[in-house]
């Protein structure tokens, strides 16, 4: 090894809010997003976390990767726990000095926790809810959730003679959040790290309940190479498959800022839906025969509808 390439002598300062030594898979999108969110929120933050990879990989008893106060409880509990924490902060006169973050996967958010999240939002609690969306119950072996996209192969939606994968459409969680009249609702992709950081900052500057949904590729669940996590997270956005939106007080504000050019992770006609689907084993069955082509055309239609609905171009 030449001298200019020698990076052995330097020791990582471990300056992030989330330490290494966690057991997330090599290339995991969720853990990249988690670190960006925690670093942006900073040490004056209390986190409640649902069950799922973000919890299982970071807190193997009796250790934790988090440096800030962080509490795990059962799937449906993080939202009401945040309400309790806020009540305690109020008694202590600290409610404006501490961020309260709620973290859950798509299974925890779209399915299991949704009733209690709705309650937290209805009460107008000053919290930021972060959903890391890896589009299935990944921690237990890739079962489909209501966030799983159409035609995806999961262990509960296997493609075969009678099925081309999941036959349900992804639940419109953004629409559900907006229906609660939240002051801030947005999506981001881990493929655009600066956008994630900007949106967490923006959300935390607003009082009331906020919802941020971050697209996070899962290496084994989607069947991608670890080195491709960021590429796939970007092509999802660039092809219109995963709409990046930002609503303040119910108004779509992100048209220019977050979309920008392709470099910023915006939609570009140059990236086809095939380019997004192809590197992923969960869509491999669509590239086998003529029927697959018809299915890909349906997914293209979903992307086109996103582009139109959210005015992405």
């Amino acid at each position, binding site marked *: 090894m030449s001298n200019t390439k020698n990076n052995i002598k330097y020791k990582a300062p471990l300056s992030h809010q989330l330490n290494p030594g966690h057991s997330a898979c*090599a290339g995991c999108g969720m853990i990249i997003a988690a670190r960006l969110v925690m670093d942006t929120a900073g040490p004056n933050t209390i986190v409640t976390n649902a069950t799922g990879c973000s919890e299982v990989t970071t807190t193997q008893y009796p250790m934790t990767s988090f440096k800030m106060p962080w509490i795990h409880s059962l799937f449906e509990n993080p939202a009401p726990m945040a309400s309790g924490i806020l009540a305690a902060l109020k008694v202590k006169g600290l409610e404006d000095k501490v961020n309260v973050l709620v973290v859950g996967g798509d299974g925890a958010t779209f399915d299991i926790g949704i009733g209690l999240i709705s309650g937290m939002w209805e009460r107008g609690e000053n919290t930021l809810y972060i959903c890391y969306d890896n589009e299935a119950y990944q921690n237990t072996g890739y079962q489909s959730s209501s966030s799983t996209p159409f035609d995806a192969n999961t262990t509960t939606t296997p493609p075969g003679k009678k099925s081309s994968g999941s036959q349900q459409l992804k639940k419109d969680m953004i629409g559900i959040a907006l229906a609660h009249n939240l002051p801030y609702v947005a999506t981001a992709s881990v493929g655009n790290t600066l956008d994630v950081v900007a949106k967490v900052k923006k959300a935390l500057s607003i009082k009331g309940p906020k919802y941020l949904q971050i697209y996070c590729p899962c290496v084994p669940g989607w069947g991608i190479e670890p080195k491709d996590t960021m590429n796939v997270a970007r092509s999802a956005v660039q092809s219109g498959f995963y709409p990046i939106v930002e609503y303040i007080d119910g108004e779509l504000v992100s048209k220019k800022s977050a979309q920008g050019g392709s470099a910023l992770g915006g939609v570009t006609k140059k990236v086809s839906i095939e380019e997004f689907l192809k590197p992923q084993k969960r869509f491999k069955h669509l590239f086998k025969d003529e029927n697959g082509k018809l299915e890909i055309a349906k997914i293209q239609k979903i992307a086109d509808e996103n582009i139109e609905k959210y005015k992405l171009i």
Partner: protein
Amino acid sequence: MKILLTAKPGTTSQVKTGNWRELVYPVIDIEKCIGCGICERVCPEGICFPTGEKNSSGKGFYACDLNWCKGCGLCASECPVKAIEMKEEGK
């Protein structure tokens, strides 16, 4: 029996996940590095960091701490100037 319900902050750092690496590890060419910090933002382990030292063109260069590196290759594929090479283990 006493069961602790709390853990000390950041304690997973004692687990050196570098032993997960099987095939490749990253090497940063410090002369090519422009100090943009992209590897620091994308590394799932959070162990790409500014060294505080400068290369011959005056850029503060980065390093990866192999003690925790799982060899995912994201730092190398995201580096905008291709300063990071994934080398075969043992070479």
